[in-house]
């Protein structure tokens, strides 16, 4: 990092915050603060939806996923376009017609206060935890890379977001997100291009593509049906459909985005274009990870991508062992690079038998390299108990810091900060809206003025931001928290979706049946999580089906009880 990088980084972040504040100052009524005066065009809605979904960890993790695991993660998004269509037909016109501030407000119109409060409570549970992780995960990586204190990094991100979200509410979130997403995608694509340009001169784009295919990384479609396999086409199409129906239809952080559209048409087009653009966008991000993989076939990657751990292990007194592993690793890399060059030549010469031979050599060299990398991770575990040796999330950022020119390093760090800020902004805004509208205004202080509720929303935003920062500081002490929080969404979404599906389509269901159905369905999901190995994406289907089935059963029982004796 040099002065140019710092100027680019803080210049970009400062401009975004300033723009968000200036563009939305003087917001005083509820509709302006919570729904952006319902004034936004479809393309702002669409970019805002995409920026909300793509957090910093999405960019850091997804590229790492492409690097290590290939393209198969893309299947996770296959259910999304269909979900966008279903929601455009059902939820969008309904929410607009009822003029609701939050999705949960609709549940009181359809059922009653307790069902609305239950759904709002489930939402606050899942989103409250995940906002902490939205800020913690990138802070951990950025603080490691930049050598900053993690708590300071967390406070910096949280404060920047708080300034414009508190000031301008939903509109500030949306107008800043469109610039944030533009910066993010520009930075990502430039990184992919640089990884490609740095490949040896005779390697074309199609050679690199073919190379990735021969090494098994272009595994975009997996047709096998396995309930315990996280990413195959079936879990993506079916489980993903339910997850995205729930995320976009019943999660206020997304509902708030398209409710700010100036009409049903603008909201619908925002969702529809998200359905068209999301999968290609994820393809590009995964492909950047793949380009970095091809790049590292010809340039030596570090033994562990989180290089700060290497230094810590040395400081802990294991320098001799580290040097021994590194010397061995240097030899193995030369062997692997020779095999990779051989494979590339065979691909360019279209020599099928040579391709097979070189693939086998590359596989063997890769295996030796993996063993050494695992030895290093074991050493980290032994010397630094409590430190997570997994380095997948560091692949992208380490590449950026090591191989990008100055100026672009600053821009890419601004990308990571922007992604963290854009997701966090939507989440804080949604948490504040739900707490104010569904809890405070409905059950604690009804009948106050608009100014009072706007002021309350601002305080709720500050409160949730402080909660997120405190949670992130505590998360620092816990192990495996990120893995846990990754599945928290699926633990609650299915049940929330079941409540909304019952409300939208199953007119025979009444409030008591749905309320108790949702409580027992959540218990089933928690049982599955703690006592079985069912893949987490399936919780979304099971939770949803359980709510509908149990609510139907309870409704039948209630009907029988009420029927007069003959």
């Amino acid at each position, binding site marked *: 990092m040099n002065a140019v990088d710092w100027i680019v980084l803080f210049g970009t972040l400062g401009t975004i915050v300033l723009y968000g504040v200036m563009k939305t100052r003087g917001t005083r009524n509820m509709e302006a603060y919570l729904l952006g005066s319902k004034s936004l065009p479809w393309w702002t809605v669409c970019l805002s939806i995409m920026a909300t979904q793509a957090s910093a960890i999405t960019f850091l993790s997804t590229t790492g996923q492409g690097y290590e695991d290939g393209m198969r993660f893309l299947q996770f998004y296959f259910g999304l376009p269909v979900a966008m269509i279903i929601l455009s037909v059902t939820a969008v016109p309904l929410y607009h017609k009822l003029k609701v501030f939050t999705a949960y407000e609709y549940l009181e119109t359809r059922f009653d206060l307790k069902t609305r409060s239950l759904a709002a409570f489930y939402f606050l549970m899942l989103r409250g935890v995940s906002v902490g992780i939205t800020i913690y995960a990138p802070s951990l990586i950025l603080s490691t890379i930049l050598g900053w204190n993690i708590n300071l990094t967390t406070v910096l991100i949280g404060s920047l977001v708080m300034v414009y979200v508190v000031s301008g509410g939903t509109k500030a979130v949306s107008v800043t997100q469109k610039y944030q997403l533009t910066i993010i995608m520009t930075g990502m694509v430039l990184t992919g291009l640089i990884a490609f340009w740095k490949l040896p001169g005779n390697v074309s784009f199609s050679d690199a593509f073919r190379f990735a295919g021969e090494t098994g990384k272009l595994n*975009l479609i997996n047709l096998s049906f396995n309930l315990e396999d996280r990413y195959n086409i079936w879990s993506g199409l079916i489980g993903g459909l339910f997850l995205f129906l729930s995320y976009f239809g019943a999660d206020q952080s997304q509902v708030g985005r398209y409710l700010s559209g100036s009409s049903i048409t603008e909201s619908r087009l925002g969702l529809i274009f998200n359905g*068209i653009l999301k999968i290609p966008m994820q393809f590009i991000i995964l492909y950047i990870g793949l380009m970095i993989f091809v790049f590292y076939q010809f340039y030596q990657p570090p033994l562990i991508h989180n290089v700060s751990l290497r230094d810590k292990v040395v400081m802990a007194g294991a320098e001799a062992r580290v040097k021994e592993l590194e010397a061995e690793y240097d030899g193995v890399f030369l062997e692997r690079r020779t095999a990779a060059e051989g494979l590339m030549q065979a691909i360019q010469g279209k020599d099928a038998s040579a391709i097979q031979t070189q693939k086998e050599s590359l596989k063997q060299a890769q295996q030796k390299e993996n063993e050494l990398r695992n030895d290093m991770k074991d050493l980290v575990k032994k010397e630094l108990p409590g430190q997570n040796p997994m380095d997948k999330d560091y692949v992208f950022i380490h590449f950026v810091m090591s191989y990008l020119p100055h100026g672009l390093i600053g821009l890419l760090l601004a990308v990571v900060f922007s992604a963290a800020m854009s997701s966090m902004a939507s989440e804080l805004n949604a948490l504040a809206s739900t707490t104010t509208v569904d809890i405070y205004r409905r059950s604690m202080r009804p009948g106050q003025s608009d100014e009072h509720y706007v002021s309350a929303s601002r305080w709720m935003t500050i409160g949730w931001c402080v909660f997120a920062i405190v949670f992130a500081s505590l998360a620092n002490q816990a192990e495996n928290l990120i893995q846990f929080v990754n599945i928290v969404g699926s633990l609650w979404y299915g049940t929330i979706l079941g409540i909304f599906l019952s409300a939208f389509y199953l007119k025979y269901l009444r409030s008591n049946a749905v309320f108790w159905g949702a409580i027992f369905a959540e218990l089933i999901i928690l049982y599955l999580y703690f006592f079985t190995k069912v893949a987490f994406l399936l919780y979304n289907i099971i939770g949803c089906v359980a709510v509908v089935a149990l609510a139907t059963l309870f409704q039948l029982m209630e009907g029988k009880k009420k029927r007069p004796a003959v």
Partner: protein
Amino acid sequence: MSADQETEKPPVFRSWAGWYWTVLLIMAVQLIIYCWITFSY
């Protein structure tokens, strides 16, 4: 089709069904391309 869908005419197409079929068509084309990449590379 709900009353709201009929009252708000979409741009480009005569009805919203045009947009929905476009999304599905683009998804189908992508799936074909992804299958082709997976099984031929």
